[in-house]
């Protein structure tokens, strides 16, 4: 068989499976992103403005999650939390059946927790770079705290955090490959199966390589555009004045 047949769609080739795998990879990353961003922002807010307890919890969270290998976090969520949920369910109702934590949900939770830990530091840095006078100008006008956050602080935070967050997003795209070990059919796992069946590692890994690389290039292009848009009106890349 020549390489086109291997990659063809239909029963003989792996083209449709690989495309589905890419779909799972992208779905996983895109679902993780908003969860991780919001959780990270929350952790950063607690670390900066919370009481003593909230501050130490936030610190413990980001230190722990950044200190663990991501694969371990994934195992803890997939196996540990699954088991915990089941014993909790059985304690509540012994007749209840076995509850299976879906690999997709486990993947999103684990990746989002890791993303939150890293992004909380990016948010925190951006918040510290934000000039307090911006907030005071809003306060002095009688704007509510939440409105100030929404219309004054958040847009500027996004501008300052964008380069760091973009970096994390590219990382996340590739970290999704980890979920292949918990039997989620993402791009990496499909490729592995294809290699196992066809014994053509170079072909399939090259295709996977090009797929990840292509997606990352596209993202970098989009991020550059977002950065240009966020920076309009600023003469230099310096902090908000």
């Amino acid at each position: 068989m020549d390489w086109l047949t291997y990659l063809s769609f239909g029963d003989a080739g792996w083209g449709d499976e690989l495309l589905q795998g890419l779909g799972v990879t992208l779905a996983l990353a895109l679902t993780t992103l908003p969860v991780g961003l919001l959780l990270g922002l929350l952790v950063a807010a607690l670390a900066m403005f919370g009481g003593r307890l909230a501050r130490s919890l936030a610190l413990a969270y980001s230190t722990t999650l950044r200190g663990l290998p991501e694969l371990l976090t994934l195992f803890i969520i997939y196996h540990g939390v699954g088991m915990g949920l089941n014993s909790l369910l059985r304690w509540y109702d012994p007749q209840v059946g076995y509850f299976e934590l879906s690999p997709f949900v486990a993947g999103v939770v684990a990746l989002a927790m890791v993303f939150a830990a890293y992004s909380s530091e990016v948010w925190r840095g951006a918040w510290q770079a934000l000039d307090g006078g911006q907030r005071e100008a809003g306060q002095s006008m009688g704007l509510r705290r939440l409105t100030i956050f929404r219309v004054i602080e958040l847009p500027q935070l996004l501008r300052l955090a964008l380069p760091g967050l973009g970096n994390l997003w590219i990382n996340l795209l590739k970290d999704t490959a980890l979920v292949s070990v918990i039997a989620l059919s993402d791009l990496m796992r499909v490729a592995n199966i294809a290699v196992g069946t066809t014994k053509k590692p170079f072909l399939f890994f090259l295709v996977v390589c090009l797929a990840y690389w292509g997606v990352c290039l596209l993202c970098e292009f989009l991020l550059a555009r977002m950065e240009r848009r966020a920076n309009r009106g600023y003469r230099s890349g310096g902090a908000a004045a």
Partner: protein
Amino acid sequence: MTNAALQVDGLYKSFAGIEVLKGISLTAERQDVISIIGSSGSGKSTLLRCMNLLEFPDSGRLKVNGEELELTPNSRGVRSRRFQRQIERVRSRLAMVFQSFNLWSHMTVLENVMLGPCLVLKRNRIDVEAQAKKLLARVGMLEKCQMYPDCLSGGQKQRVAIARALAMDPEVMLFDEPTSALDPELVGEVLKVIRELAEEGRTMIMVTHEMRFAREVSSKLVYLHQGRIEEQGCPEQLFNAPKSDNLRRLLASQY
């Protein structure tokens, strides 16, 4: 007396155990232009920031247009929703112009001026835009209304900040050293705008180092020294015959 634009009574404020304001009482009647002078560290800016509660006074009374704020010590920590709303209402009546402009850097000049009226006063966008353009024309910034603050000079920024404050149609305007961050050649354009506001009868309280300007536009001068009002009165009297030795020294060094 009851309907003074702004009334401060027995204001105390300390930072980390150091008393910065030691019982300040001050009344701004309608159309008053009050300049607060004093050497640095005398508490001028803190006093101004206490007036719109950017700093929370330790004790004292604050009355804006007849509405009194309950500044009890326990209102510092846990603030009730109602009290927070009252603070916001009072702040919306007292527009502030900052030394460092504090224009919102991600918004155009026009958006800066429109934000308060739209989101605080909840006024119709079309009316707000028309009024904002009128105010920008007044301070000579209309042709820059689509620019971002970072592209403006300091004097231009401060004129926009004044238009932004005016857009709230405030009871009292608070100026916190409005020309101290400007290059000398840009001070004039900002003072000209403030002078026009004074002449049209705006109630203003201004912290300033521009002695000559304070003397010309103020209806009342307040000299702050080490957290207390050491002397106050009409500008001529304070400049020509200061009773306080400290004030005499300050005037001699600057004027």
